């Protein structure tokens, strides 16, 4: 399925752009997408944490993905 990824902060540097469409197979939920990302871009494995958001909310690993989802990559935050 096709998933739209949006990246901020260091995630944008790792992926090389702010938005990208990816073509994935055997990626059905957030947990599997995280694994896919860490394999495709090993630099994600070096981060302190990696979260994914859909619908402007953090989502757990079991959250099921559908082709229409826009997934936002949230590297460790550092506001304040």
């Amino acid at each position, binding site marked *: 399925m096709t998933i739209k990824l949006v990246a901020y902060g*260091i995630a944008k540097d790792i992926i090389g752009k702010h938005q990208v469409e990816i073509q994935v197979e055997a990626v059905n939920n957030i947990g599997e997408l995280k694994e896919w990302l860490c394999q495709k871009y090993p630099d994600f494995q*070096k*981060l*302190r944490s990696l979260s994914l*958001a859909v619908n402007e909310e953090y989502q757990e690993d079991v959250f099921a993905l559908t082709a229409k989802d826009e997934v936002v990559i949230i590297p460790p935050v*550092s*506001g*304040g």
Partner: protein
Amino acid sequence: MLDIQIHDSPLDTQACIDFTSHPNAGGNTIFVGTVREFTKGKKVIRLEFESYEPMAIKEMTKIAEIAQKKWSTLAVSIHHRVGVLAIGEVAVVIAVSTPHRKAAFEACEFMIDTLKETVPIWKKEIFEDGEIWVAAHP
């Protein structure tokens, strides 16, 4: 009463204090976070804050709502700056009023602590010889 904002221009601390002033308030506590000149001994030239704005607003609102529930806050104002900041500029202002003074301190500390953990805003420190996304790596 909540006042949650993200700005790419200088923050107005007094506006946050004014928003949270309340006739029943026993105290009004404010946290102001400014941008530091040195980090681990290295001189920072400037900083850039980037946010995933709609979600950042949502997460800041959640934090204010939790505080409202837990400490019966009368009003909360959270303003966060994004874009390029010079040293000494204000990055965040959190103001809160509560009927009892102690609660205002607890609520304010809770909000800045939680904001730094959950709100999708990222800080990049720019040095003379490079740049770093703060707290990205262990």
